[in-house]
């Protein structure tokens, strides 16, 4: 302990202690949060759990002396101040994120479901307090039955909008009917819950009816002043921002000051500082760059730094050890049960009553049951007010964690991904389909030109341009959700779509949020019955292999043919080299070269490399000839092709040497060419690195595409290939 004390400044240096505390909180919060993310759980569940782990429930239980040295009671005051400031700014951000468009004109059903999703848990919560009041609450001025019942009701009816929106975007549900209804409900819940909380706080703090009316009167007046006095001023700030084109420090300072003043006023009125911060954010004019920039400026520090401190503070106050007997745990189970019955049951039944199928209604119920950190915010307010006891606080924290953690797995079960995929599946009878995943905007142009060169002769061709957005990093708060986001408006697809328009080519843009890009590329290709995935390459971060990392995972994980384009020239090739040894990948290379030749009149040379002095049988020569004839000598549209047989020890050397004469090399993935797909390949592929011309590296996934009869000449080519081999 002496060692710890020395390390912590002997317990006298509060700054040193605070630095150690915050570093520990941040470190653990990031690690556990990342761990939960990997488990397909919202990061915020991990962060909440990290906070509890630092408290008496784990750290204090396992190492009481060390815990006491790191978090001495005297220092908790400072953590409390930090966490309170954090929650004030967090609520301001929540208000900023509140978009009235999500609530307006969303139809009767959405309004009904949203209100039932508040009323049902609220009523069940108040009814539960009839049972719990004499068992888990103390007789004190702040724990009068009315305050307790309303508080339990309000805390049961909360929904964590940010967490919910994050789950929806990650599952690409936000543009479905389920997603749209749920988002509306959650947005309504957000506003209602904070107003309800303000009401409960007002009642809990009021000393008689006159005091209650006084608080209500001032609160109403304050809301009016904010809407009709402060909001116009905020609009002016927005105009200044538009004129200046940036958010100056003076403006940021002014807004921070307004947040603090608003929080101060509502605290003085008696409806808590949080409501003032939330209200200021909520009245901020939405849909502008001003709000976006302001959010970006504030969110990192608030969400990454201050919120984990809030979680830790909550954890330090959560003593799960208080629940030390079976009866207490039974009450805890009951709290969870009632919370789920109210929120999940209420939302589900309301959605069903409004005519939605059971499965969709159930999905809405599950999503609405997500409480996340919003529950912790409300619980801390209740604890600070003295409306709930330590045991009830611990039970409600467990309930918040449980309901949030259950959302994703139960949603997977009730509303499985394959169900959505079924709805999204495309007609498989249409023409040749190419999928172009685009990450960097600049790479889209050459890929769409290449796609045009490959498919121009197919009148029924379908070209899909896909861009996958990574989920925003700060999932505790930011949702990345914008219902008006259209794929064609996505920045990374703009150059591609402009080029397609020039080529008079119809391209369907597809954009969604993805946590696992390679898998989602493969999944999209499968859903849309794509023949060819045509993608650029990016140097993997940790390896030197072009066919490693993401490319490797697409190559090996997709059921479609894949072509990786390594661009080293900006015009369409007039000469194409196809190194050929007869593998199925080489045959795909030949087929794609044939397609390009048909559409661009490019001259194709088929390169066959044999060992020195090897006798090549006549049958083999005939096989290669027949194969190229089948691809190139279509009687209706014959194409020039040259067969070139070169003797060489190393096929790789031969290809590099021969490629000098050509503008494009179309080559199959094969060990002979030194092109092998490896996730962590550290050997740079020589052909890919040393060939000076552009490269199209292809990999055939024959069974799937051929079975659908999509690739035209593939089966014929395969038949001839038997003779070659």
């Amino acid at each position, binding site marked *: 302990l002496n060692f710890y004390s020395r390390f912590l400044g002997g317990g006298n240096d509060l700054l040193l202690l605070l630095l150690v505390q915050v570093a520990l909180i941040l470190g653990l919060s990031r690690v556990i949060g990342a761990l939960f993310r990997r488990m397909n759980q919202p990061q915020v569940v991990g962060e909440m759990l990290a906070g509890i782990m630092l408290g008496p429930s784990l750290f204090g239980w396992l190492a009481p002396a060390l815990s006491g040295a790191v978090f001495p009671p005297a220092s908790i005051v400072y953590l409390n101040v930090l966490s309170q400031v954090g929650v004030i700014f967090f609520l301001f951000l929540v208000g900023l994120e509140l978009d009235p468009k999500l609530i307006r004109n969303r139809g009767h*059903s959405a309004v009904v479901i949203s209100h039932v999703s508040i009323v049902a848990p609220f009523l069940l919560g108040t009814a539960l307090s009839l049972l719990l009041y004499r068992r888990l609450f103390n007789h004190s001025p702040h724990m009068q039955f009315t305050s307790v019942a309303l508080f339990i009701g309000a805390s049961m009816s909360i929904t964590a909008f940010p967490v919910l929106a994050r789950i929806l975007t990650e599952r690409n549900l936000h543009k479905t009917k389920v997603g749209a209804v749920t988002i509306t409900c959650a947005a309504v819940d957000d506003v209602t819950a904070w107003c309800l909380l303000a009401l409960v706080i007002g009642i809990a703090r009021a*000393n008689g009816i006159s005091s209650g009316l006084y608080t209500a009167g001032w609160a109403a007046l304050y809301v009016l002043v904010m809407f009709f006095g402060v909001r116009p001023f905020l609009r002016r700030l927005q105009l200044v921002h538009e004129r200046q084109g940036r958010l100056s420090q003076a403006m940021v300072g002014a807004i921070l000051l307004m947040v603090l003043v608003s929080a101060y006023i509502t605290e003085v009125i008696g409806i808590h500082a949080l409501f003032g911060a939330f209200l200021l954010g909520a009245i901020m004019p939405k849909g502008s760059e001003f709000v976006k920039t302001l959010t970006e400026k504030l969110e990192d520090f608030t969400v990454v730094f201050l919120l984990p401190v809030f979680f830790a503070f909550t954890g330090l106050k959560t003593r799960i050890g208080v629940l030390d007997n079976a009866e207490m745990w039974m009450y805890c189970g009951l709290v969870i049960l009632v919370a789920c019955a109210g929120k999940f049951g209420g939302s589900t039944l*309301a959605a069903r009553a409004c005519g939605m199928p059971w499965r969709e209604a159930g999905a809405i119920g599950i999503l609405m049951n997500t409480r996340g950190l919003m529950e912790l915010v409300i619980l801390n307010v209740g604890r600070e007010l003295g409306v709930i*006891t330590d*045991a009830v606080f611990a039970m409600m924290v467990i309930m918040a964690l449980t309901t949030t953690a259950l959302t994703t797995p139960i949603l997977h079960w009730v509303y499985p991904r394959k169900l959505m995929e079924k709805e999204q599946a495309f007609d498989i009878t249409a023409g040749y389909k190419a999928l172009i995943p685009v990450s960097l905007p600049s790479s889209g142009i050459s890929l769409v030109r290449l796609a045009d060169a490959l498919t121009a002769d197919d009148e029924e061709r379908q070209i899909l341009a896909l861009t996958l957005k990574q989920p925003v990093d700060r999932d505790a708060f930011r949702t990345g959700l914008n219902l008006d986001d259209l794929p064609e408006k996505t920045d990374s697809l703009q150059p591609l779509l402009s080029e397609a328009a020039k080529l008079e080519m119809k391209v369907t843009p597809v954009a969604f949020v993805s946590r696992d890009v390679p898998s989602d590329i493969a999944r999209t290709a499968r859903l849309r019955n794509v023949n060819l995935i045509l993608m650029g390459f990016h140097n993997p971060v940790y390896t030197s292999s072009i066919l490693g990392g993401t490319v490797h995972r697409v190559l090996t994980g997709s059921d479609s043919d894949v072509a990786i384009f390594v661009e080293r020239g900006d015009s369409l090739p007039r000469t194409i080299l196809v190194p050929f040894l007869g593998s199925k990948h080489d045959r795909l290379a030949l087929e794609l070269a044939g397609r390009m030749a048909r559409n661009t009149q490019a001259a194709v040379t088929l390169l066959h490399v044999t060992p020195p002095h090897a006798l090549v049988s006549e049958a083999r020569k005939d096989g290669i000839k027949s194969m190229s004839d089948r691809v190139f000598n279509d009687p209706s549209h014959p194409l020039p092709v040259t067969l070139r047989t070169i003797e060489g020890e190393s096929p790789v050397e031969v290809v590099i040497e021969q490629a000098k004469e050509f503008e494009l090399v179309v080559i199959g993935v094969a060990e002979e060419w030194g092109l092998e797909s490896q996730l962590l390949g550290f050997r740079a592929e020589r052909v890919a690195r040393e060939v000076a011309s552009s490269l199209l590296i292809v990999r055939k996934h024959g069974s799937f595409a051929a079975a659908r009869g999509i690739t035209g000449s593939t089966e014929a080519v395969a038949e001839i290939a038997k003779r070659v081999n």
Partner: protein
Amino acid sequence: LSRPTAVYLVMIVVLIAGLWAVLAIGSHLVAPEDLAGKWKLQSTIHGIPDDMLNIEQSGRFYQISFDRDPTHRLDLKWTDRTANMVHLAGGDTKLTISGLMDSDDKTVELSGNHAGRWTAHRVTRAYPWDVSGKEGH
């Protein structure tokens, strides 16, 4: 009347009736007396030292400890209230706290391991007691 409108009307009726019923019934309920906090004990029996008693309470559930042996925690449960006496029990231990309701001055009588009888004065409360909600913790 469309289906959503009907659902909405039912919801409003249920809300008003339900909330009225809950608050009406709840207004007759009384929670266990708040004894949580730190109590200064003065022994009334010769040979038993003065002490500090810490009571953590959530309704009928209590965790108590004494400053002279803080690691030893007693888990007690409310069993009865007679006149001005609150009876707690857990394992072999029985604790009786007597005095006026909500008063900070009580008499504490304990049987079992830490047996003794004391007059007790509450030094701090665990839960806020003033109207502004800032006291305690």
